[in-house]
């Protein structure tokens, strides 16, 4: 197994508006983050037409957000993000060595004592957020994964496998407006739904979990099976597991994130990090076409 893989990623989004758009504002989360196991070597966003203004700034979660304004009539918009990212193998983890989940919960809860800024950062991801409403039903669903004293990563991985087993991957049946309870009841959805549901379950125990937006390797390495969700942008979950820190789990595939996962951005849920969102004035039908390719260009050992 290689110790690192270098990828070339191309993420194309094309809007054909079917009419003149007079004015438009767009918000992009298309710049890969840096992490100990992830280095962005090259990155660019090509736009057609060119915007009237473009600003690249860090958002509140440390991601780079690109804000665009278009002020001339245009009938289509093409956004092509290209990047080269090197992914290193992550250290081996021993789930049994992580802290019992109740201790994690209590350490993140308010006690009236000072809270280290590092922990304050974690607390952001414990609470309900716009796309992740926390319900008692989620707590009941995940109860068996978190018996008393369960090391947190053991519990989180059990939950991940439970979701992977219980849910059916069903592209095209859900959208960002589909309520989480609906997905919970029908047990069908896509990576975004798997991730939101897992986050909701973890937060219902008072644990911290964040939403990771990114990509999967398109074609599997020789001898491996293809992963689900590789033809578009992907999403998975990071769980706060002291003393290890954040550990990324992919409930759609039932695996820990590894050499095949490239992270773009993270936040409380999809709403914080959606790759492209915006408001247009004018225009007609606007179903975008999206193409993602993630090719390994080198395997390094």
């Amino acid at each position, binding site marked *: 197994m290689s110790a690192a893989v270098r990828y070339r990623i191309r993420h194309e989004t094309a809007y054909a508006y079917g009419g003149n758009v007079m004015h438009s504002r767009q918000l992009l989360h298309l710049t890969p983050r840096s992490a100990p196991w992830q280095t962005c070597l090259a990155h660019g966003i090509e736009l057609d037409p060119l915007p009237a203004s473009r600003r690249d700034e860090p958002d509140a979660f440390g991601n780079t957000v690109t804000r665009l304004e278009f002020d001339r009539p245009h009938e289509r918009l093409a956004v092509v993000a290209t990047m080269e990212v090197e992914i290193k193998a992550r250290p081996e983890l021993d789930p049994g060595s992580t802290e019992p989940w109740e201790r994690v919960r209590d350490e993140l809860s*308010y*006690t009236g004592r000072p809270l*280290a800024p590092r922990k304050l950062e974690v607390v952001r991801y414990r609470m309900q957020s716009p796309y992740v409403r926390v319900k008692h039903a989620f707590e009941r669903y995940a109860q068996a994964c978190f018996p008393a004293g369960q090391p947190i990563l053991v519990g989180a991985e059990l939950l991940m496998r439970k979701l992977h087993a219980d849910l059916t991957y069903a592209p095209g049946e859900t959208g960002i407006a589909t309520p989480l309870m609906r997905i919970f009841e029908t047990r069908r959805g896509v990576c975004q739904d798997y991730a939101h549901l897992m986050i909701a379950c973890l937060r219902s125990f008072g644990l911290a979990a964040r939403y990771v937006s990114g990509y999967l390797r398109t074609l599997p390495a020789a001898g491996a099976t293809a992963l689900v969700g590789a033809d578009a942008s992907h999403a998975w979950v990071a769980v706060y597991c002291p003393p290890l820190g954040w550990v990324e789990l992919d409930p759609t595939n039932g695996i820990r994130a590894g050499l095949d996962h490239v992270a773009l951005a993270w936040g409380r849920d999809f709403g914080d990090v959606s790759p492209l969102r915006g408001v247009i004035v004018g225009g007609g039908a606007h179903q975008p076409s999206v193409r993602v390719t993630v090719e390994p260009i080198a395997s390094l050992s």
Partner: protein
Amino acid sequence: MAADSLEFYATDAHRYDELRDRTGALRPHWRPLIERLTADGPRAARRGVELAQRLIVENGVTYNVYADPQGKDRPWVLDPLPMVLPAAEWRQIEAGVAQRARLFDALLRDLYGSQQTLTSGVVPAELPFGHPNFLWPCHGMTPPDGQWLHVYAVDLARSPEGSWWVLADRTQTPSGTGYALENRQIVARVLPELIRELGVRPLTAFFANLRERLLAFAPEGETPLAVVLTPGSFNETYFEHAYLARQLGLPLVEGSDLTVRGDTVYLKTLTGLRRVHSILRRLDDDFCDPVELRADSALGVPGLLAAARAGRVMLANALGSGVLESAAWLGFMPGAAEQLLGEQLLLPSVATWWCGERPALEHVIANLDRLVIKPAFPSQRFEPVFGKYQSPTQRQRLIERLRSRPHAYVAQERLDLSQAPVWRSGETPGFAARSLGIRVYAIRTANGFEVMPGGLARIAGDSRVEIVSTQRGGGSKDVWVLGTTADEPQQLTPGARFRVRHDDLPSRLVENLYWFGRYAERCEDKVRLLRATLAVRADPEVWQRAKQACESFGVLRSDPRIAVALFDPDNPIGLTADLHRLVYCATEVRSRLSTEHWAAIGTLNRESQETTAALGEVVPPDPREVLDRLLAPLVALAGLALDDMTQDDGWRLLVLGRRLERLQFLATLISQRLTASTLASQAEVEWLLDIAGSTITYRMRYLAMPRIGSALDLLVRDGTNPRALAFQVLAIQDLLQRLSKSLGAAGDRSVESAFTQSLQPLLDVDLGTLEGEGHGAQAARSAFAAGLDALAAAAARLSDLLSSRHFSHVKSDMHTVAA
């Protein structure tokens, strides 16, 4: 005497009595008011209550309640007897409220900045992070003048021991200032001498200062423009938005009236884009910008956050300020005051425990009977629960809930609210006791926070309810703060800065003014048509034709019940539907309409509703009476349009709407009659003249039996008859010229000239040739009718042109996209 009027004013040992002390004696600050009212006797009291009621109905003061079975608008409930506070006591409240406003401003700055209150452990991080109004996109922002909070409100209640306690804070878009001002204006009509004699402190300076504050943000050299941003006429407090905008002299706008180009906010006006410097918003935090906040909000302004981030617009209050609206904060405010201000908190709050703290949770569970459990965050669907009313099973379930997600709940001690007198009318007039709370307001001025010397008292509908809320059907009172010689007289001096600007007409407002004009005229035309028609019922021949005319205008349905045939609300082009549209347009332009205007609209609305309600009754309403009652306010509207409005471009479009409508109606009506094969009888001509309101003019001018030729002269060609088609054409021409002069509109004028020219063929005809039964006369009538149709069609094209020229950028056609 006093004993009599207080006969029904019961004392309650558990409550503080605002009116009487423990010995039963009137408190000194109430005495002058009560003695005067008692001396004036029950009849004066009843008159006062009735006057207040009438003013509320006439001024159209309403409070919309979602899903109210009684309909969209419910009249505001005001008890004209004020709540009285002495000067010394007020000073304490004032200091406490101003301090609290400063504290919340500082807390917002901290939460959206360095978050030291969280890292120090003074405030739980769960409170902001779990609150839907904590907007992460605003983290790290600095508002243009460094101020987060500009308008603040606090709900206070008095404990049985007599001190004032905080029940809740409003930091997002505090409502009620407009109602407070309206209450004062109504009470000032009911009790004018008392206000003067007692030196009640006026409220006007507060509003002047708010306006100053909003306009002060414009840079040197730019004409300041501030707007009031409303979610629209379906909001529960829309009346107040319109009222405030009018009182402040600022345009009332919706999100679609604004656009952000680059980092600058603009108002779409009739004359183009105008920079907006400040926004007094009534739109909730997360609805304000669909680009960065809730994507599903169609009410917001795309890019508003970018403009705020760049410091190019002042928002009162800053986006994200709603995060402090939760009872969960109350217990942590003393610590925050110490940390952020280095001060002791002056106003205590009702005892509150946030269950996210382990010891607090145990205390709450042990003392459930004394507590009310509430949600910590407004996004939770959880109604307050009184611990003492729970069955053992319910209680167990509640405890499980609390233990499983303690940070989502708050427990509060129940507070026995103080009681104050209200006026009771009816059989035995006098005073009755009701529990009450007061809402007090503060605004940011150049000299720190200033507290409104008064406020909005809210009373419970019942003497013993435990929650006072406008949405739950309580009433309101004016709050009188008694003056001392030390208080400066605060008189509103209307100066240049108070003049309302007229070049900031939002395009949407102008479009609604145009349609307001059209519907007002359309309703009047239809009422006149129906009225004239019912008057000829005795003459079978005329009746038959008149009925056909009504049917062709869609105002008469085939129904044996005449009232239903005329007033069926389900008829989409019937009179009732048009009255609804008129009221709707009037609501949209409410900030531009005077009280008298609004009174006429109110009458129309009531008449229409009462008629609809009475349609199913055994004795249906008499149609002619209803029409007479409708015509009076419609005629009043026509008069007010001429005499009661500033004659700016908005007014010009309103009058254009009226003129075009009248022209199209009359041209169509006459044309229909002329195309019939027979010559109009004398009775039919009389019917026509009646509809056109020209019977008397005709008699004076012609001194003869009505004939079609001379009637057409009067109704079509007479440029001095304000109902004649020629008069409309001339007036429209004049209005268009003024409009294009004012707006500098150039370019293609072919539609306008085609319209003006289409009158000429009608002027050239020898009207004598139209009279007679012969073939030639009939052909001449048909030709004349074709000329009338051409004129009506030209008017319709002109109307379309006005729409595309002046209102086209109103429809913003906004979509959110995501990939």
